[in-house]
């Protein structure tokens, strides 16, 4: 598997249906896809573009993007 390490939490509005279902033994509802076959959408737009009209992706929906919303504790 080509999963890559995730070091920071993506935007709380990032959504995906991980193509591999869910990660093994995981209880989280949503899992950021870690493979190039993952598809994404934004909760705020329900589409593949964010409110800033850039595309939604695990590698893009990160701190520093103007529409980024940090996950709540």
């Amino acid at each position, binding site marked *: *598997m*080509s999963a*890559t*390490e*995730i*070091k*920071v*939490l*993506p935007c709380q509005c990032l*959504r995906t*249906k*991980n*193509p*591999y*279902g*869910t*990660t*093994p*033994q*995981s*209880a989280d*509802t*949503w899992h*950021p*896809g*870690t*493979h*190039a*076959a*993952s*598809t*994404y*959408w934004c*909760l*705020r*737009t*329900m*589409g*593949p*573009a*964010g*409110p*800033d*009209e*850039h*595309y*939604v*992706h*695990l*590698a*893009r*929906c*990160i*701190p*520093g993007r*103007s*529409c980024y919303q940090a996950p709540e504790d």
Partner: protein
Amino acid sequence: MATTKLTPAEETMLGAAVDAATTPGMETVTMPYGIPGYTLTQVERQIPSTEPPVLPVNKDLQYIGKSPARWDAHAKVSGAGRYTADIQLPGMLYAKFVNAAVPHARIVSIDTSAAEKLPGVKGVYIIQHLLGGAVLRNPSLDPSQYPIVRYAGQPIAAVAATLPHIAEEAALLVKVQYDAKPFVVDMQKARQSNSPQVFPGPADQAGSAGGGGGPHGVPQTGNIHGPAVHKVGDAEQGFKDADVVVESKYTTQVQTHSALETHGVVADWKPDMLTVWASTQGTASVREELAAYFKLPKSQVRVITEFMGGGFGAKFGAGNPGVVAAALSKQTGAPVRLMLDRKEEHLSVGNRPSSDQTLKIGAKKDGTITAIQLVSYGTAGCGTGAGCAGPATNLYKWATLHTEENDVFINAGPATAMRAPGHPQGAFALEQTIDELAAKLNMEPLELRDKIDENPVRRVERQIVRESALWKSRNPMPNADRGSIKRGVGLSQSVWYRHINMNSAAEVRVHRDGSVEVLSAVQDIGTGIKTVLAQVLSEQFGVPPEKVSVKIGDTNYPVGPNSGGSVTTASLTPAVRDAAWQASQKFLASIAPALGTTPDDLVLTNGEVSSKSGKMQPISFRRAAAKMNTDEVSAQAKRIPDYNQGHYDTYGGVDVAEIEVDTETGLIRVKKIFAVHDCGRPMNPSQVINQINGGLIQGISYTLYEHRLLDPNFGLMVNHNLEQYKIAGSREVPELHVELIESYIGQSSTDASGIGEAAGVMSAAAAIGNAFHNATGVRIRTMPMTPSVVLEALSKTPQRSETV
């Protein structure tokens, strides 16, 4: 059965198991392990002592592993089953989307006045650009009240009216003024630096993109998001070490999901509760998104999916239909139904991305793979997800690996997950290349796969294939038939991965009238989980499936897993069995005093309660239940982790296709498919085989027919129906023969696994491709394999001129 010699990882587990006997709350048990008739043995596991007794293999069970009629079959065939489109609520309104007519534009204005004046129209909703604090990525764009249009068919607004035809008419009356932008719908053109940009703005460089927040080093340049690079070892050196190298290019097309039931919801917004009936693969996902979007507590959102007509990965979350219907219901104070039509289904709610792959494999003379290199470009429309390296990465052993996956944006609807994402594309290239490699190494295709695939289950599957009449009937040499109709046989393997969704729980109740029921929010997407849950209860209580009640598809019940990635049965059935076991123990404790014995003296079987010691005569379950000291006993259980988390299981199969190629017309006819598959313990073999049949048919359809066609001049899909978008029908379905492998892995109280992804859909194209080569001596590397593609392939080879 003797206890097996275990892998090092399992020996480690067993080492720990020595301590299990003295660990409070844990016990060591012996479970079936392996394949009956081939490798069946036993394995020890340490498990929580609250777990139910270990189930024996299927042949020793009464209900699990058998194939009773579908629990809801009568409701389905009689029309009694209520799908989302069947929901009728008092005062319900019908909604219709207004969709973009152009592939790329900034919306200048939306005039809904004429629609609002139409008698019967009760509500209008415009999808607003929720800029908030966001800064537009492309500073040349003026901030607009509306989102940018990136594909023809993108939802812009919706209307709600008292009747469907009024809503349709009103949608046509909405006037949208566009500031049209240059667009691109051809992937090759989109890759060029001077192409119109789908997401214009400054490029993201590899160094900053990702930023530690996800896959690292994924840049964006123009319309290309990528490459996502995965390297293991030095592939360049691996190719130098190889005795043989095979390299080829493969192309696959965009496929749409085309589920029988389109996306749709009925939303009923009340002050204290939003209730939504949804055609979804995840009641939990719809509730989560609606609660988050409208900032409601989850407890005030209820999602119901009584019956559901397929999704294939496209139906997760609320989506625009869910949000818009809920907003219109809130606005109008009435329930609102919003079902997409077939055109919208093709355009806006997902597809399987295309692929252009360059695959290179190097191997030693003995077949050992020294290097695999894959470079792929694919389009997921205006979204991402076109990677296809899964098979190259996971199907076989290799010494070094180098994959680069690229998404290419075009002005088309975004992809969503589709049954085994990326794998049908990847397997089409990989499995034909493996056959090419075998030929170069002067090895049989099965012989090479035995060398490079040590999975013990696949090994048994290959053995079954090797001994099959169909495989033995393949041409010893390609292009053996001298006439214009050429017959060939080819095979392909598939692989998928065991994943468990821990959001899997159930409650089991036993009532004093003798009725038994199970409740879970899980939805049945058509694969038959209702029947499987009934079987689990039946096994525990000794009553037939038709005598138990299965209540699912409602978030008022304990949480259920979203159904995608082949997780449902593997995730939920252990929780259901655990709940059933606990409820049965409470039941026996409740009735034992009245029966003059103790709970552990009682047995539930054949619809009766009997005594091991003979203290009482057997009585019917119903009469026994009447002796309960309360009206009801119940137990709720949630999924616990797999027993052996240190081991990573896969599912898969080996599929053999027999085809005929008409070398004059270019028509391919698939005559037969022999499919050997595993899915852990088959809980209901008939339903598993049904899924494999469906996967094979879907795979044949993808291979030969389905093709989303976009007009390059207008950017519109020209075959947005099920007439010109051809799907395999009854005339195209070949003889299908499935051999199901029981494969015990000792992972849970049911030891169930999944089947949906590995069920033929990823292997059909490659099996047909390899059969095509066996028939003609020609490699076909482009899908769909239409007559023109076939004739083009044949025209480039000497074989055709020799034989036609």
